[in-house]
């Protein structure tokens, strides 16, 4: 599962959705892999406004990446800053969590990730 995807995910438990603690989910015991994905600056610039930047900063730190700036770069900044472009591309598009767990900060439920696939099926008592 890509780091990009994690930015759109929250706990599958309905009663957690209203809590700000359920987003972002927290990676635990994560094993990472890096794909080779062709860089697409325009796509990245288009995607950035769709991300929750604060959540991405949290995720980035939790996965052990260097901390991101307080504010997302503007499209102009991004095209001018090759290093930032490369870093964000690598983090969002290329980095995968292959094994590990995603933990809800509200209910504590852990979702397993195996072979790069996160499983959000809930046990019946949580549905």
């Amino acid at each position: 599962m890509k780091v990009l995807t994690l930015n759109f995910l929250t706990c599958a438990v309905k009663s957690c959705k209203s809590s700000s603690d359920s987003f972002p989910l927290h990676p635990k015991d994560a094993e990472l892999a890096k794909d080779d994905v062709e860089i697409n600056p325009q796509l990245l610039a288009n995607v950035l406004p769709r991300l929750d930047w604060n959540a991405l900063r949290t995720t980035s730190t939790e996965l052990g990446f260097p901390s991101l700036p307080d504010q997302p770069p503007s499209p102009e900044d991004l095209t001018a800053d090759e290093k930032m472009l490369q870093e964000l591309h690598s983090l969002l598009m290329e980095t995968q969590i292959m094994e590990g767990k995603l933990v809800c900060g509200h209910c504590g439920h852990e979702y397993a990730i195996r072979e790069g696939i996160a499983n959000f099926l809930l046990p019946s008592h949580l549905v």
Partner: protein
Amino acid sequence: MAALPSSSAATAVARLNAAATAAQRDAETEAEAYERTHVHGVYQAIAPHFSATRHKPWPAVALFLHAQPPGSVGLDVGCGNGKYLGVNPAVIMLGSDRSPALVALARSRLGRPDDAGIQGVTKIRSEARSAATTATSTDAAGSAVSTGQGGGAAISDVLVADGLSLPFRDAAVDFAICVAVIHHLSTRARRQDAIRQLLRCVKPREAGSGQVLVYVWALEQGASRRGWDEGGEQDLLVPWVLKSQTQARAQKECRHGQATSKDVNTAVTNTGGETPSTATASAGEPGDTQTAGVASQTDPVFKRYYHLYRKGELEEDVLAAGGVIITSGYERDNWWVVAANGTPSSRPEQ
């Protein structure tokens, strides 16, 4: 000070509520168990065969996907083998499915230019990262195998989730598609709830954005050979015959990327309803050109539950789920609708 209800009345109300909730829960549990047998279990069992017969995107779905602006992020709920994830390489698709077997298949296809593509596998060593001290930090220097991905879908992703408990945050994405999925839910409340979930995940309605495309099988299939039409039974168990030879051939065709869907996945059985409310019928699948086949004694037959939508019913369900209809129509044995959230956030509309 406002008078409190007498404790006995309050207790009675609480008891009534509890009883109602319990009854509701029982009905839900029953519906879930039914779908586990007649939908989820079947797809787990037939996943490779099913996948091998599914490659051609529906034209109207492809059109919808191509209409999304570059950089849009969209959901494919019930993505199956992921055939829609790479249709528009300029958008990011997050696919989910209830079947882990189908999601694994979808993931194996991500990033391939087509079914014939071969993924290069390279071994990399992840660089030592700045000392992460949190408990959730990762293995800093472990080696990992990564797949070199070249196709458009390399920026898409898949996960396992139930359409009624989607793990996406509210208003997270620009659009969503849900093709040939909701007709597998066995009560109307659950079908409407599934649409409600889709609407919850997309952004508020604005010009061209926040749209949800839903496709379901139609009751009105006068032009097909399945024999279903207006006025017929809407809740059916539809057999899928897992023919071993067919499976092998279908997979071969799949690898060549040009299967003609002539696989025999249909059978004629008239054994009567397994459950009081459900009839059994002969059928194929949306998107196939059916060739009715005869199941041999030994081929396993799996029966999937379908609710066939009658004309207008999908629109009713969208409205009941709090959505509005942007457009709707009929395409080869299927009803479809493009919906959006009923309450636009910014601009007031009548």
